[in-house]
């Protein structure tokens, strides 16, 4: 009686069952095995231990179309045999004979035939079943070992995968990217071919993450990952560099550099299109865009970290310049970056060393009376002298330095406002305005900070105003409206600065609870001889009147401009024609002078 030496339990049993059928003239053979809680065949370590027994195998599988595995009569026979605790039992049913034999420690085997097996034959099967039982044990142990090995292999594979992949997006991680970049760089150098590294940063992602929560942010990142994978070649490596930054390695773009660059630009265009498709999450749509930079390689003596750094710089430039196309790295970018870094460091020191000073540009009415002033930041630095804020404010805005500077401006302006109040200057003088950056607007506690500054300095809130540029407003409409409403509640009013240069719609304008619209200087310059500027200014003034907002023109530099604006109906002005920005002490002096003249 061949048992077979297959280590797979089912195959080993099958061989035995088939041989049994042919040697013993059987109609069918059935095996029932003891199983553990998961249904896996096992064995009992001592006789009589209660075990679950389950149908394991039948040859043939069916009788009269019904599976033997579901035959209740057969199951009852097995149960009865187990209860009897005998090594073998025989049942005759429907002209068929069923012999149940115990498989020691493993279960029961049932032979079905048309004739009863001779007692001698039955007895001779004892040692065979013992051997079969041993074989079952070997197979179960082997299969258990195989399972463990498979589980271990899977665990090792998972760990290896995790070591090389980002957990959230399953993209390659930095480590994997670096490996691939090294390989690609070596390959390109050796074979004189080109490759490129494309650095992608998501715009507006941080605000979505902060406002809607990391769950939403994570889903967007996962979706971005999928979109990037779908538009890249299989040999490209798409990696998540961290946060909302992705990197794509295009390893082999041919020998021709120009053609390679065209491929990169094409890829970048597809990436833009893919990222700008609305992300639909639980019925809510989210829109983001991305900034991209890239570096072609190989270049002389350039290492992998250089390539990554340069692509990052190029991306940064694209972000700063709000470029939709991917920018190629240029050495100027490194210089710019270094300059920015130096500036940032100096800005930090400036805060610490009190190198900042608030200057004020007075605002006038048509009677040339000072009705307010706009606070402007000045930096007294021996290195930069009087560097224009247009240079260092954007640098500050790249980091959180702008928040510290903004806080300082707020507190300093409030302090100055208190001085004005104490000196009785706040009669005609309505508002001291400070500029607010987009980053400050996104601060969750910005309103609280303003309240705190007013409280600490005891400055009158009704004389403080904040100016928010049109573009900043539009990029964070809901936040802006909430802030403006809250501020209006405590008496602090808001102005829309640089109006006419942004992308606001008239619908937005209706929603903003602003006191004043400031016409951008670009429309004021030479307004008296520029019909277009006049039309725009006229429109803004009419808008303001209809929306019950005050209008102030910035950048008035000549009498002609002033007269023109007056003709158009604008009655508040600011500009060099009236006064340059002056230190607070000078403003105070000007206001004293103005008061004296009034009295006289």
């Amino acid at each position, binding site marked *: 009686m061949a048992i077979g030496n297959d280590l797979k339990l089912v195959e080993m049993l099958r061989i035995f069952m088939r*041989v049994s059928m042919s040697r013993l003239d059987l*109609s069918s053979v059935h095996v029932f095995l003891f199983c553990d809680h998961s249904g896996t065949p096992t064995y009992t370590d001592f006789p009589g231990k209660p075990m679950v027994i389950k149908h394991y195998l039948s*040859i043939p599988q069916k*009788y009269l179309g019904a599976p033997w595995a579901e035959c209740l009569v057969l199951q009852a026979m097995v149960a009865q045999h187990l209860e009897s605790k005998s090594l073998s039992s025989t049942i005759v049913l429907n002209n068929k004979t069923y012999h149940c034999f115990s498989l020691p420690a493993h279960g029961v085997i049932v032979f079905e035939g048309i004739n009863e097996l001779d007692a001698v034959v039955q007895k001779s099967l004892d040692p065979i079943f013992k051997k079969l039982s041993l074989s079952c044990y070997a197979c179960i142990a082997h299969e258990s070992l195989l399972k463990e090995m498979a589980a271990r292999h899977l665990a090792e594979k998972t760990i290896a995968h995790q070591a090389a992949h980002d957990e959230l997006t399953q993209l390659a991680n930095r480590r994997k990217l670096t490996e691939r970049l090294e390989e690609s760089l070596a390959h390109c150098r050796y074979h004189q071919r080109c490759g490129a590294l494309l650095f992608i940063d998501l715009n507006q992602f941080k605000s979505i993450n902060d406002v809607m929560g990391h769950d939403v942010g994570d889903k967007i990142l996962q979706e971005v990952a999928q979109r990037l994978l779908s538009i890249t070649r299989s040999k490209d490596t798409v990696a998540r560099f961290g946060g909302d930054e992705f990197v794509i390695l295009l390893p082999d773009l041919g020998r021709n550099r120009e053609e390679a660059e065209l491929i990169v630009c094409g890829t970048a265009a597809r990436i833009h299109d893919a990222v700008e498709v609305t992300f639909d999450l639980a019925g809510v749509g989210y829109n983001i865009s991305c900034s991209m930079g890239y570096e072609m390689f190989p270049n002389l003596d350039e290492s992998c970290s250089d390539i990554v750094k340069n692509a990052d710089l190029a991306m940064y430039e694209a972000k700063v310049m709000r470029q939709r196309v991917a920018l190629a790295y240029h050495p100027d970018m490194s210089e710019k970056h270094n300059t920015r870094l130096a500036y940032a460091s100096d800005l930090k020191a400036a805060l610490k060393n009190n190198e900042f000073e608030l200057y004020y540009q007075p605002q006038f009415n048509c009677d040339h009376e000072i009705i307010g002033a706009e606070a402007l930041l000045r930096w007294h630095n021996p290195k930069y002298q009087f560097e224009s804020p247009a240079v260092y404010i954007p640098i500050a805005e790249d980091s959180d330095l702008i928040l510290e500077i903004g806080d300082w401006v707020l507190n300093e302006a409030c302090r100055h406002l208190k001085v004005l109040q104490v000196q009785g200057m706040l009669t005609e003088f309505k508002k001291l305005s400070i500029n607010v950056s987009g980053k400050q607007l996104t601060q969750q506690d910005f309103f609280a900070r303003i309240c705190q500054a007013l409280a600490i300095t005891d400055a009158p809130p009704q004389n403080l105003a904040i100016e928010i540029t049109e573009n900043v407003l539009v990029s964070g409409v809901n936040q802006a409206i909430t802030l403006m409403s809250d501020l209006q509640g405590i008496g602090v009013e808001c102005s829309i600065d640089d109006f006419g240069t942004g992308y606001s719609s008239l619908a937005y304008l209706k929603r903003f609870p602003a006191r004043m619209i400031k016409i951008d200087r670009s429309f004021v310059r030479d307004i008296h001889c520029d019909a277009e500027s006049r039309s725009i200014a006229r429109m803004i003034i009419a808008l303001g009147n209809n929306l019950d907002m005050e209008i102030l023109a910035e950048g008035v530099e000549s009498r002609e401009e002033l007269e023109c604006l007056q003709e158009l109906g604008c009655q508040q002005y600011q500009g060099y024609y009236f006064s340059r920005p002056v230190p607070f002490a000078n403003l105070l002096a000007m206001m004293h002078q103005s008061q004296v003249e009034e009295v006289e």
Partner: protein
Amino acid sequence: MALVEHNNNVYELPPIWLDAEGTDEQLGKALESLVNFGVNSILILACSDNEHSADQLKSLLGACPVPVFGGIFPGIFFNGKCRARGMLLVGFPFVVDIDLYNDLSRANLCIENPSWQDGVKIDSAADLLVFVDATAKTSEAFINTLYETIGGGSHVIGGGAGSIDFVQRPCLFTRAGLLQDAAMVVKLPVPMRCAVDHGWEVLDGPYLVTEAKGTHVKTIDYLPAFQVYRDSIERVTGNQFDKNNFFEIAKNFPLGIVGINEDIMVRDPIQRIKNDLICVGCVPVNTMIYILQGRRKFIVEAAFLAGEQSGLKLQQLSHKPLGMALAFDCISRSLYLGEDFSDELLALSSGVGEDKTIIGVLSIGEIANTARGTINLLNKSIVVGQL
């Protein structure tokens, strides 16, 4: 070619066409006529000497609007007369389900193979006709797997199709054309009862097959198989083997695997390669075998018994039979009996009942249920199924 006239008032026999020429053209005409008759399925039994063309029959069979099944065999017989050329077509009033299994030699003959599970869909114990290419190396494995898949309870008959030269050629009739290296399982919507017998008796033995591979018996009692076989026959019967007369002698002395219930499963040694005996059907290692002999009387009587038993079983059913018997008679019985084969056909007719119509083939291997219910490939046997 002609429609056979039935003078049978007892049964409503299906239309049967008998053709003596066996050409593709005649086959086409026969199919057309039967279809016009309104039949719902057609059994085609043809002779290997007909020289049918698979290419020509592809479109002809494909165009047939009703299921067709059947095979090409070394011979056919009808109502007592055996032919080596010609064909028989039976037009049944019922539709049959046919499952085809192609590429038998390359098939994954495993119970878990989903295509096998899907192929034989039996809700209840349908009775089956099985046709298999006898030259396919895995034909016996197919039959074993068939039983393991569908299980007991069905009544099955069938046979191996092909030519006696054992050259593989297209030999199964289907609507996909004439196929080779394939098997066909036909599910009958009417009950069939069958019986099998062979009439061979033990001459010498037992012997233990100590080395075997499939149909090749290599050693018997640890000695070269042919040597043991030859010595036994020469000793007991006086026949002398030489280089050229193996088949002439061996056809009279098949091997028999005797089961524990003393049923004999015959294995026909058809060839000798060096000291190996090659049989039609597997002889597993460690099997106890006997060398069998035939006595014409008992061989012929087996046909009678098979016919009689199948009829008795059918009588136990309450439905109205078609009055038809389908027989698969091993070609080697015909070769053994020679001119006396007509006696076998007469005995068959007696057993079945002379009021019934007998259609049969000389097959290469037979397929039937054994007494214990398993479906096996048999040799040198006669299998009769009555509808």
